[in-house]
C-alpha cells in the first residue's frame, strides 16, 4: 500500500500540451516590461527573449516592443503605453494565436494562418484575421479604433455582437455601447500611423522583402537576362530559381 502511494506520489505525468515557446522578442526599445504567468514581478524584456502562453508585455511612455511568432513569422508591434497578453498553443506544427490587448496601440502583420484565425481581443471587440496588416488603438473600456492596411479583418463588437469587415484604408470604430462603424481613413490618420512607425525605426525603408524570409511562400529568385540583336530588338530570358 505504502509502495503504491509512493509510486503515485512519485510518479508525475506531463500532459500533451507542454509549455512550448510561441514567439521571440525581436526588438525592445525604451521601457518594456514582461511577466510570465507564474511570475509575480515584472522584468525588463530583452531582445531574444522567448514568449510563452499567457505572457504579459507592458510598454511605458517611450517603450516599443516587437515580437515574431515562430511558426510563420507573424509580427506584432507593441507601441508605447500598451498592455497585452500573449496566448497561443501549438497544434499540428502551427501556433493558434491570440492576443489580448487591454490598452494601447498595436500593429499587426499577420501572415496567412493555416490552422485557425488570429484572434485579437480587447475589452470592447474581437477581431479575427486570416492574413492581413492592420492597427488597433485600444482605449481600454472606452472603445477601439481599427485601421486597415491590407487584407480584411472581421471585427465583432462584444456588446452588440455586430460584425463588420475592415479593409484597406478603412477605419473601424467599435464602442462600448455596441456601435461599430467603418469609414475611410483620413490623411492625417495615415500620417500619424507612418510617424509612429518611423519614430521607432520601423519605416518601410528599413524593411526588406519579407517574401524572401520564408521557405513556405514562393521564395523565387529571378535571373533576368536581356539580349539585343544586331537590329536592336531586345528579348528577355527570365530564369526562376527556387
Amino acid at each position, binding site marked *: 500500500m505504502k*509502495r*503504491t502511494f*509512493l*509510486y*503515485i506520489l*512519485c*510518479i*508525475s*505525468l*506531463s*500532459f*500533451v500540451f507542454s509549455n*512550448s*515557446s510561441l514567439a*521571440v522578442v*525581436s*526588438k525592445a*526599445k525604451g521601457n518594456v516590461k514582461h511577466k510570465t504567468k507564474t511570475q509575480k514581478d515584472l522584468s525588463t524584456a530583452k*531582445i*531574444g527573449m*522567448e514568449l510563452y502562453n499567457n505572457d504579459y508585455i507592458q510598454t511605458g511612455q517611450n517603450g516599443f516592443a516587437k515580437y*515574431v511568432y*515562430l*511558426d*510563420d*513569422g507573424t509580427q506584432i508591434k507593441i507601441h508605447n503605453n500598451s498592455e497585452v497578453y500573449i496566448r497561443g498553443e501549438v497544434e499540428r*506544427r502551427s*501556433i493558434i494565436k491570440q492576443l489580448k490587448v487591454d490598452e494601447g496601440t498595436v500593429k499587426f502583420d499577420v501572415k496567412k494562418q493555416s490552422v485557425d484565425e488570429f484572434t485579437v481581443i480587447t475589452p470592447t471587440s474581437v477581431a479575427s484575421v486570416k492574413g492581413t496588416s492592420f492597427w488597433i488603438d485600444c482605449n481600454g473600456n472606452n472603445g477601439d479604433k481599427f485601421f486597415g492596411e491590407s487584407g480584411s479583418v472581421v471585427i465583432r463588437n462584444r456588446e452588440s455582437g455586430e460584425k463588420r469587415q475592415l479593409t484597406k484604408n478603412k477605419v473601424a470604430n467599435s464602442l462600448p455601447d455596441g456601435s461599430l462603424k467603418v469609414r475611410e481613413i483620413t490623411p492625417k490618420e495615415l500620417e500619424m500611423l507612418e510617424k509612429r512607425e518611423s519614430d521607432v*525605426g520601423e519605416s518601410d*525603408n*528599413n*524593411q*526588406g*522583402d*519579407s517574401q*524572401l*524570409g*520564408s*521557405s*513556405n511562400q514562393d521564395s523565387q529568385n529571378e535571373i533576368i537576362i536581356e539580349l539585343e540583336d*544586331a*537590329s*536592336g*530588338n531586345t528579348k528577355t530570358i527570365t530564369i526562376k530559381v527556387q
Partner: protein
Amino acid sequence: MKKIIYIAFASSILFSQSIIHSPDYTLNSEKNYNIEASLIGFIGNYSSLNATLFYRSYGQSTYFNDKMIFINGKFRYSISSSFIKDAIEYYIIIETNEGAVFAYPENSPVENPVLVKSEGYNSSSINSSANLIPKYEILSPEPDSYMQADELFISISYFEMDDIDLEQTKVFIDNTDYTKLANIKSSHIILVPDENLYPGEHEVQVMFTNKVGLKYSPITWKFSLLSKDIPSRESFIISQRGNLEGNYNNTATDDMNLQVGQLKGDYNIDFDWLKYKGNFLLSSLEDENEQTRNRFSSSFKTKYFNIMLGDSYPSFSDYTINGNRMRGVNINFKNKVFDINFLSGSLVRDTQGLPSFGAMLLLENKSPVFQASGFLDTDNIGVIDVSRDNYSFNQSLVGLNLAYIKSEKFKFKFEILKVKDKVQSVDQIIDNSIISLPESMVRHLYSDIFVDYNLNGSYDLNEYIGNLNQSEHDVVGSVLWNNADDLSNINKDHFVSFSIDTVNMGSFSEEPFDDLNSDGTWQEGEWFNDIDGDGEWSTDITYSTYQMKWDIKIYYEDLKLVIDDFINNEEIFHTDEDGTIDMSDCTYNDCFGDYDVKILDGQWEGVKPQDNIVLGTDFTHLFDNGSFKLNYGFSFSMLNQNIWSPTLTFENLDQLGAETAEDSTDGQFNGADIPEVVNNLDNFENIFQTGTSQIPIIPIDITDGIEFKDFLTLPSLAVYFDVSQKYFGHRINWGFKQIGPEFNSLGNPFLQTDIREQYFSDRAYYLDNKLNIRFKWKRTEDGISLVEDNGQTDKYDFNFGFYPGANLPTYNLSVGIYNRTNGIDPLYDPVLVVTDDVLENFQVDTLDCDVAAALDYICSEEELNDGYMIEDYEILSTQLYQPERTRTGQFSLSINSTVDYIYKHRINLNIFYSNKKDLVDIDKYLVLNNNYYSPRSMTQSYYLGLFTTFTDRLQTSLSINYNYYDYGYATEYNEDYFQSQNIIGLNFSTIYETYSLFGKIDPGFNLSIGRGSTDFTQFSLKAGSSFEIAESLFFNINMNYKLKFIDKGTLYNNYSLLMDLKYKF
C-alpha cells in the same frame, strides 16, 4: 501488431526504478533486429509487468506497437528483417499493475525515440550530394533589410522541422562561425553577436543536418547594418571592386626553357551616372624591339558615351577592322537613331631594331671607276648607301563608323578606315650599330676562285681559275694564284670582328688547261691537266668551286675611318721598295678605290611604309517583324605598298607597263587614256598618298562604261549579300560574298582575298526545341575571274543535336563532305613543246626529208639515212602545275550524360573520323611526275571521359583517348612521303578539399604513348593547390613534371611551374 494513432506522454521517474536498455546501433537490413530491456529496482513479479515496444521506419509518422516477451529476466522483442529498410526508431514503455509507467528514453520518448541506422544508409546518406529542403522562417533581421547595429538580433525558426540534429547545426556570419554563441533550440535559433559588426552588408548562413546525417540546403540571407553616422545623402560611390594578380610560369620543354612573369589588375567603380573600368597587364616578355605585350586600358561609360583610352579591340566589319588591337582613343556614341564610333591611335608600334642584329646595313650604290693607268678616277668614286632593316613603323589609324537607325526596319552604315605608316617613327641612324662591309668593299681581300678538283674543300696547286679576277672570265690554267689577304697591313683597330670563310661559289666541269689563244676553250695542242685520267680533255665531271672571303664587321661610326684605312692599305700594297706606285692591276677592278657614304632617308631594305584607305557601306532591311532580313553592302580599298615610290603622275603612269619606247609616251595606261587629274593627286596626299606601288593603279576603267560584270570583278572591291529568313520553324540563311585580289585592309590583315563565296544553310528545331537539325552548303572559289578556271571547294555539312532535358544525355552528330579542286587537270601524258616547228602548227610532226627540204629544213646525215625527220621538242615540266582533286568525308559524334549510381558521374564520349581521298589516279600520274605528293590523309580520334563527384570535398576525372593520323602516299621514288602516327593517352586527376592550410589540391598523372613517325613515351605527374592565405588573398600553384622518351634514345625531363597570387577587393 496494433497500430495506435498517437500517444504522447512522458514520464519522469523520481525513484531509482528505471528501464535498463542498451540500444544496438548496428542495424543490418538483412537480419532481424533484437531489442532487450529490463526494469531495474523493481521488486515484484515481473510477470505483472506489461512491456510494449513502439517502433516505426525512419520518416514514418505513426508507430507500430507490440508486446515484449519476458524471457530469462528480460523483456525481448525481435523486429523482423522484412520491416527493416534503412533506419528505424523505437521506444519502450513498461507499465505495472499499479499504474506506474516507465519509458525508455525517459524524456519525451515519442518525440525523441531511439534511432538506429543501417551501414548502407549511413554511407549513402552521408555522401549524397542531394540536399534536403529546409522549412524555415527568418525572424530577424529580415532579408535585405537595414537595421541599427545596436539592435542586431539574428533569429531563425524551423518550427516545422522535427528531425534536425541540433548538435550539427552551424551558424555563420560572413563565413565566420558563430555557432558557439548561438542559442540553438528545438524550434529556433537566437544569436546576438558579442562584438559589433561593422556597418555595411553582411551575410548569415545557417546549415542544418538531420538525425541520419543528411544535410539540408544552407539557408543564406543578407542584411545591412547602419552606422549612426551614416550620411543622409546618397552614397557617391555605388560600388567598387578590383583584382590584383601576379603569376609566374617556368617551363622547360625539350631543353628549351621559358620563364614568364605577369602582373595584372583591374578596377571597377560605379558612380551610377558613370562607370569606370581600368585594367593593366605587365609582362616580363616585354621588349622594346618587339610589339608590346603590356596592356593598359581605361573605359568611361555613361548612358550615351563609351570612351576607351589605351588598348581596345574595335570592330567595324570584316572589311575594315574586326577585333584587331589598337592603342589610342576609341569613342562610341549611341542613342536610338545614331551609333557613331570614332578611332584614333595606332595598330603597330615602332621598333628600331637591335644595333647588333642588322639594324643598319651597307649597300654599294656605285662602284668606283679606275682610269686606264689603274689610278682611281676621283670624279667617279664609289657610293655606299647606308640603309636600315629589322624595324617596324608606327602604324597610325583613324576610323569612323557611322550607323543611322531610321527605324527597327532599316539601318544604314558607313565606315571609313585609314591606316598609314609613319616614316618618321623609325630613326635613320642607330647608334653603335654593327654593320658588315659589303662584298664590293672587301672583294679585293678575297682569294681567287678555285676548283676543288681533289674534293678536299681547300685550295691546292693548280686548282685556281685564272687571275683575271673577272668572275665570268676566270680561266683555268693561268698562273699567279692570289690567296686571300692576311690583313697584316690593314689597321684592324676599327674592326669589331673579322673572319674568313671558304664559300661555295658554284660548280665547274672543265679540266685545267692552258688557254694559249684565249678563246675560252681547249684546243688541240694546248696543255691540259687530265684530272680524271681518261686521256682526253673532258667536261663531263662536275666539281665545286670555292672562294675564301672575308666577313668584316665594324661600328657604323667608324665607317669613314675604315674607308681611309683601306685606301692607305691599297697604296701600301701597290708601292714597291723604291716607293713607286703601280696601280695597273686596278684596271681589272681588283682594288678598293674610294667611297662616298650616303645615308638613305627612304627605300630602305626593311619593310616599306604603307598607306591604306577603306570605304564601306552596309544596308540592313527587316521585313515581316524581323522574320525576313536583308543585308548587303560593299567596301572599296586602296593600298600604297610603298609610299617611298614616286607619286603617281601623268608621266610615270604613262611609262608604267609600257612595253616599247613609244608606249611610254602615248598618254595611255593599259590602253586607256590617262586623265589629267592624275597630276593633282598629290593634293589629296593627306587622304591617300598615291604612288607607283599602289594597288590598284586605276581603281576602275570607265572608258567603255561600267557593266555589272565589270563591277563584279573589280579587283579592289569586296561585296556581299545576305538573306536570313525565319518561317515555319526554319531558319534559312543564304548569300554571296566576294573579295577582290587587290582588296586590302591593314585593319584586318588576315582577311582572305581573291575569293568568291556562296552559301546556304537551314536550321530547324523539333520536339519542343530539344532536337535541332542543320544543313549547310558553302562554295568557295579561289579567284573572282569569270572566265578562268578557279580552284573551288564545295562543303556540305549536316548537324544533328538532341538535348532531351536536364540531367539527360545530350547527343551531337555531325557529317561533312568536302570536294576540292584547284582547277588544274592532271596531265597523265607528257606535254610536248615544239622547239623547231617546221610545219608551224605547234605540234611535233614527223616529215619526210624531201618535204622538210621544201620547208627550208635540211635533214642531217642521220635523218637522211632514216629518210625522215622528227621536229625537235621539249617535255614541259609540270612541277608548277600540280593538280589537286580531293574528297573528304568527315564524321563526329559527341555524347554527354550524367549518371547517378552510388555517386554522381558525368560521362563524355567523343568520336571523330576524317578521310581525305585523292581523286587523281596517283599511280598513273606518277609515271611522268615522280615527285608528286598526294594530299590524302586520314584522322581518327576517340575520347572517353568520366568525371565523378564523391562528396563536396572529393572529385575525380578519368579519361582515355586514342588518336591516329596519316598523310601522303608512299611511292617507289619517295618512300618517305607517307607518314603516320598514333597516340594513346590515359589521364587521371583528382580535386580534394583538405579544409586545411593546403586548401584545395589537385594531383594527377598522364601517360601518353606514341608510335609511328615518331616513337615516344611520356609520363607526367601534376599537383597543385589553391587556398586562401588571408581574407581576399588567394594563392594557386600548379606543378607538372614530364618524363619523355623519344625513339628509345633521347630522354627529356620537362617541367612546368605556375604560381598565381590574387587579391580581390
